[in-house]
């Protein structure tokens, strides 16, 4: 029987790494400041050098383009490097190697590149424009990559194990705002959450919120608030952004007929646009209201608290927009003031 403990989101990531390294000698870690006593900027790998040695916990120079490329070389030889990008924001420096080399190698000539990049993403922490970004849309747009974004400690563990075992390059977006503030049940031992499967985090009949990452917690908060007002919100946690779980997306859209898509990343040309297009194309006749989106503003992530709050979706904003989305149908008979969604886009 599987033991389930309460772990933080961050501890769940560490546990997945530790268990995979114990299981498979081909799994190794690469990244800036991850080794020794230090254990990384967020301490995810603290104690790893002591257990696994310097051979398997490789401190890297400040040269992401070089060491992501090197990880591709190791992966082609059958190793399974897990790269810690110190902040997801810095992944741009390695863009060429990820998009042009790793993403295309298998299609062009059959070279499998089974690495994982752990990218500490997202904000809400007043960390400014270069420590708060959500870069997922670039990689969802890139052929040959897989992209996952866990929103709970259990998924953080299960998706990281799945990513390490996958034979393709996987961008694993971990949500910094959840690191130590989010605690939840996590199965001990071998626990895999398959890539490509969304999860209904809360069931409801009135309106669906489709989201992922740290916005799952915000959506569940909004759902709890609206439940008090008699509105039953369904929350679909995508968990994997590439490949999207189209069946789960269409099932919930057909069920409630009213959909709000939420992500912390900029709304413009974000993952939500693709989800929205999918629903419009495949579930149009089930919709009772136009599809709504809520994402970050089209500005660099600002530092100062009131600015970042204005930039970023929240439980309160989700609740307001979900409520408005639900009313769009009934409003036809009894016009009510609608939210100006443009200010979010």
């Amino acid at each position, binding site marked *: 029987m599987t033991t389930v403990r309460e772990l933080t989101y961050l501890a769940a990531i560490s546990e997945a790494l530790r268990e995979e390294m114990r299981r498979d000698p081909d799994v190794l870690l690469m990244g800036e400041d991850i080794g020794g006593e230090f254990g990384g900027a967020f301490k995810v790998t603290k104690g790893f050098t002591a257990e696994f040695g310097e051979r398997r916990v490789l401190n890297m120079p400040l040269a992401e*383009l070089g060491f992501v490329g090197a990880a591709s070389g190791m992966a*082609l030889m059958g190793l399974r490097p897990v790269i810690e990008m110190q902040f997801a924001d810095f992944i741009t420096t390695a863009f060429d190697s990820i998009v042009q080399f790793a993403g295309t190698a298998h299609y062009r000539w059959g070279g499998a590149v089974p690495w994982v990049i752990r990218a500490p993403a997202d904000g809400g922490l007043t960390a400014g424009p270069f420590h708060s970004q959500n870069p997922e849309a670039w990689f969802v747009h890139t052929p040959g990559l897989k992209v996952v974004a866990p929103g709970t400690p259990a998924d953080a563990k299960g998706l990281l194990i799945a990513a390490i075992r996958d034979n393709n390059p996987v961008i694993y977006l971990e949500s910094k705002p959840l690191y130590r503030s989010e605690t939840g049940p996590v199965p001990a031992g071998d626990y895999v959450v398959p890539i490509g499967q969304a999860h209904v985090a809360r069931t409801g009949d009135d309106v669906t919120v489709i989201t992922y990452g740290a916005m799952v917690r915000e959506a569940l908060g909004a759902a709890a608030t609206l439940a008090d007002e008699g509105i039953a919100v369904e929350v679909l946690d995508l968990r994997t952004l590439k490949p999207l779980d189209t069946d789960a997306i269409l099932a919930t859209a057909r069920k409630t007929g009213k959909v709000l898509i939420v992500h912390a990343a900029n709304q413009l040309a974000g993952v939500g646009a693709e989800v929205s297009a999918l629903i419009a194309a495949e579930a149009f006749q089930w919709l009772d209201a136009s599809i709504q989106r809520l994402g970050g503003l089209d500005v660099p992530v600002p530092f100062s608290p009131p600015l970042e709050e204005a930039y970023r979706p929240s439980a309160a904003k989700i609740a307001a927009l979900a409520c408005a989305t639900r009313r769009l149908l009934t409003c036809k008979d009894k016009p009510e003031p609608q939210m100006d969604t443009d200010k979010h886009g």
Partner: protein
Amino acid sequence: MLAPDDVVASMHRDLGCYLVRGITPDRIFGNLLGKATGVSHGRDANLHGMGDLDHNIIGFVSHLPQSLPVTVGVAMSFQYRNELRVALTFVGDGSASAGVFHESMNLAAIHNAPVVVIIENNQYAYSTPVTEQTRVQELSKRADAYGIPGVALDGNDVEAMVAGIQAAVDRARRGDGPTLIEAKTMRMLGHAMHDGFEYVPRELLAEWAAKDPVDRFAARLRTLGVDQVELDEIDHRCNVEVTAALEHAQAAPLPDAATVTQGVYAP
């Protein structure tokens, strides 16, 4: 120089490398013609995408020198598994200006990786002469910045190249780390077929034509007593093989459009 289980990442100018490693001429022509029988099955163009791990070749990508960090990583995997294997790659004088060149050489040096990096200094990055690319014309001197040996060789002297590369490969294999080799040579044609390379002074071309490595090596073989008839025989065998391979590739099918989405992901 390299053992069969050593790994090489060649460029778009290294046709000989692919042949020596065992990629057959019909597969190369197939790649050039976009045929299903080409190395990349029609996925990639001309000499790009000619990776084949059965022959320990990493496929080339146009973003030079993105194969360089990959090759360093291949070498690091040999260290990780305590394998006495060596990785080798080629870059151009143009690629040596890219930031990833520095990042990769530095990484190789820090890890004492068993890698050999050959800069083919063919004097021009497309139309830009090396004199306009860098102030230090001896590209091998960059090795000093990484604390590794840098060796300048006459890239048109077959024996000098063999000896220099063999020494670097041996050095890497015995655990003494990376070597940067600069092979001084000349690009005798345009960057590609569309390029008339009017920007290259014709007297410079004539100067390098007199140093043609194949002619020089043939002359060297004759001084060692190899008969011209034997050299002609080799030429003839090559022509027959290449002609047959071209005919084979021309007759081969184009890829089935229904396969366009296949192979994006590894199973």
